[in-house]
């Protein structure tokens, strides 16, 4: 059976070039970069190169890059590390649609005496940044707002937010896990972003490596206390092969950014338009907002997402859903609920997230099969039947 992998916001294929770059660091170049001998020293060189490669992708300085184990660690470090340096401040501002790596940390802190503001979004997933302006007070230690949403691909105006917060005495963190490598980011131009998280396995590096960007001059408490590694902010011997891999992935991402923006966007639009045309009662979640070029989140009304995913999976098509049943919880995704997506649609949401490895032909394969799957499930659904009946021919 063929595999059509369109779940790249969950994780990506490790690029073969990345794997190739990593391999020497297991059995040959296995020295500890901190060692005084030449054997460790040559590894230190490679580590430095990787740091520059990541810095270049972000428009940052190499000493502003701290390697971590994953995006979640970066997010945790940003939040806890900031609060520790501002013990007199007790307020955090974030959004209702953040990734759990920020949202659940903030909620955890709200039970420990912190005041939490979660900014709402509108039906298209957009923030009202005037509300952010009102929310930030002298007591606010941290504003954490994601760059792009993992479920819908909706991008927040992070640079505008950074401008707005520049004169305020507050640290601004952005979870850019879904944005890095998909859209151009230049932190040298945008000085109001203090902290930024990214994750290797979302941009064709392997799982197990991430980065926290810390702008020069940003106070942040160390988050793994131990040795001098990563300027003492994160002790522990560096995960050299994976860091080298992430460096290579960052270099490739920089070269391929143009491709993501044009070719990938093109086939994403081809899929989206094709499904909208072929399947009645289909909605685009996040419609009208600037979105990542690789993501489309569609709701097929009156059917349930897990059923769709299983049928797709039987055809080798790998996607994901914001339906309750797929998450192990009983309610649909917090992102769709925050957007006020009606239940008729929220349970039937499917996310396709593409990468540079996808082809137009693969989209045609999905277009060939998905409409029939929806039709089949709607034929079983009691709501589809009554919706058809009540609209008296309004629905095909």
């Amino acid at each position, binding site marked *: 059976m063929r595999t059509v992998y369109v779940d790249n916001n969950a994780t990506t294929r490790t690029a073969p070039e990345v794997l190739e770059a990593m391999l020497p660091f297991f059995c040959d170049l296995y020295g500890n970069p901190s060692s005084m001998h030449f054997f460790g020293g040559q590894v230190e060189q490679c580590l430095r190169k990787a740091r520059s490669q990541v810095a270049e992708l972000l428009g940052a300085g190499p000493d502003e890059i701290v390697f971590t184990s994953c995006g979640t660690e970066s997010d945790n470090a940003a939040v806890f590390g900031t609060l520790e340096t501002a013990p007199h401040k007790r307020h955090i501002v974030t959004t209702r649609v953040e990734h759990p790596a920020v949202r659940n940390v903030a909620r955890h802190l709200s039970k420990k005496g912190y005041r939490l503001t979660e900014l709402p979004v509108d039906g298209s997933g957009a923030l009202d940044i005037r509300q952010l302006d009102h929310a930030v007070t002298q007591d606010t230690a941290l504003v954490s707002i994601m760059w792009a949403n993992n479920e819908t691909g909706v991008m927040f105006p992070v640079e505008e937010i950074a401008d707005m917060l520049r004169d305020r005495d507050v640290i601004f963190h952005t979870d850019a896990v879904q944005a890095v490598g998909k859209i151009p980011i230049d932190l040298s131009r945008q000085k109001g972003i203090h902290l930024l998280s990214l994750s290797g396995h979302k941009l064709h590096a392997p799982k197990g490596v991430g980065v926290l960007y810390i702008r020069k001059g940003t106070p942040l408490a160390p988050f793994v206390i131990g040795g001098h590694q990563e300027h003492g902010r994160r002790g522990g011997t560096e995960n050299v092969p994976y860091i080298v891999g992430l460096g290579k992935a960052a270099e490739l991402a920089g070269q391929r950014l143009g491709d993501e923006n044009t070719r990938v966007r093109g086939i994403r639009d081809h899929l989206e338009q094709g499904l909208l045309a072929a399947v009645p009662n289909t909605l685009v979640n996040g419609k009208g907002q600037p979105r990542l070029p690789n993501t489309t989140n569609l709701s097929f009304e009156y059917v*349930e997402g*897990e059923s769709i995913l299983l049928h797709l999976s039987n055809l080798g098509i790998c996607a994901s859903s914001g339906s309750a*049943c797929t998450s192990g*919880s*009983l309610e649909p995704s917090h992102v769709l609920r925050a957007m006020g997506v009606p239940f008729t649609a929220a349970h039937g949401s499917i996310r396709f997230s593409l990468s540079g490895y996808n082809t137009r032909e693969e989209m045609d394969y999905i277009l060939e099969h998905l409409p029939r799957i929806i039709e089949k499930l709607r034929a*079983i659904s*009691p709501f589809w*039947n009554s919706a058809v009946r009540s609209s008296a021919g309004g629905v095909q």
Partner: protein
Amino acid sequence: MWEYTDKVKKYFENPVNVGEIEHPDGVGEVGSLACGDALKLTFKLDAEGRIADARFQTFGCASAIASSSALTEMIKGMTLEEASRITNQDIADFLGGLPREKMHCSVMGMEALQAAIAHYRGDQKTREEEGNVICKCFGVTDREIERVVRQNRLSTREEVTNYTKAGGGCESCHDAIQAIIDRILAEEGTQPSKERKAGTKVRRLTNIQKMKMIEETLEREVKPALQHDGGDIELIDLEGNRVMVALRGACSACAASEVTLKGYVESKLREFVSEDLVVEEVRE
């Protein structure tokens, strides 16, 4: 990914008896769009009062579709008496089992069947019979929770959520669900399952319920062991969470009685009755 049995996959991928019977004898509708699953079951009886045909329409996940389709297969040829005895466990068993978190799909099948039978018999449930809504997110009543707890011998709040969805949303009804479980456990004298995470919950029981459960635990778990060594134990009193006991026979003169009390008796009572109990010896 959920681990579905081949039978679940079969009934999901190629469901049988899809649709709606025209002029049915019985119609049962349960669930809603908001809940994420819903089932409409219709059946028709033959001249002898057996179910001649049954059809379903389901909005929901794979296990909901499979449970519904399986149910229609199971009830064909049955009398209403026979059909009314089908439990959610029967449906799950028919499918070779369901993931724990998906048991509510089988419950939905059972409820739709019962609703359809009630519809045929012309039973109009009064509000009181339906019970009070405990879980507002999923519209689950105390009656429904009670029935599922008793039928499936559930003993934790998590299990109730897996079977009925109650408590799976805003979570504000967790205490109310726990209270229903505790009441039923106390009434039935059943022991809570060992899956209960130690230290996470202190059970809310009345003193009488607690006393009864302590007595039962002492009888079953503690006395046999002590009697084996020529000793015995007696429950004297209960004050809040302080359990007063007297040691008898060999135990009363035993130097290790403190160890017995704290290490054995108290841990057993905490395991089977409530996490916050403290055992104290009364010397007479």
